[in-house]
């Protein structure tokens, strides 16, 4: 089956990043495909590569990047949610004249249309709050 995910919870502060990732890994192990993981609301913080967790703590951005690479999954942060929360990539940095960027390049920046596209085409949509 084709499954897409929506992840709304913040990295570190909430377990939802972890739960979503474990679910996604297991789905792939069972032969399903994860068409897209869309990060919305505080979930966009999961693309911030400046996050530094302790060696024995779960690091959401590293875990998502590895997962997406291993299973060829599209990671997307919602552009409006991310800009409001200060998560931007180098292109946005240039566009808005900001001094830096912090979104991992493995994450695409797209609008809520991407969330709908994926939800309308996938067999299942699973939201993690």
């Amino acid at each position, binding site marked *: 089956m084709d499954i897409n995910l929506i992840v709304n919870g913040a990295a570190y502060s909430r377990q939802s990043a972890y739960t979503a990732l474990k*679910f996604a890994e297991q789905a792939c192990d069972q032969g399903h495909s994860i068409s897209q993981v869309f990060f919305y609301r505080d979930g966009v913080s999961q693309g911030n590569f400046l996050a530094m967790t302790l060696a024995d703590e779960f690091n959401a951005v590293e875990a998502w990047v590895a997962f997406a690479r291993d299973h060829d999954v599209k990671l997307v942060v919602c552009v409006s949610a991310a800009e409001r929360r200060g998560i931007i990539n180098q292109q946005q940095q240039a566009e808005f004249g900001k001094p830096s960027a912090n979104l991992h390049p493995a994450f695409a920046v797209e609008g809520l249309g991407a969330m709908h596209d994926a939800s309308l085409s996938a067999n*299942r949509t*699973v939201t993690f709050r």
Partner: protein
Amino acid sequence: MSALITITESLFNRPSLYEQLAFASNGDSILLIQDAVLGLQSPIALASFLAKCDVQGIGVFALQEDCDLRGIDNQYNTISLVDYAGFVALVVGNEKQIAW
């Protein structure tokens, strides 16, 4: 179309989520994850919720790993513990998921 309803928050913090059972339909399933598994430790806390689920024909599951992490000892034989593979199977087995 049957739904998998996931509940994430603690019964003790947000009891209204458990009253939203009124919005579920016969044949739906409920999966308790994260803080929602805390209620399994008390033989009383979830009793009336589970009785209503039984009457409505709604199966109740809880995520084993989230129980283990928190040291929760499931007091209910009507709640089936599932691993992440079981979570995936519940998503596949229902037409949609709703995250309450």
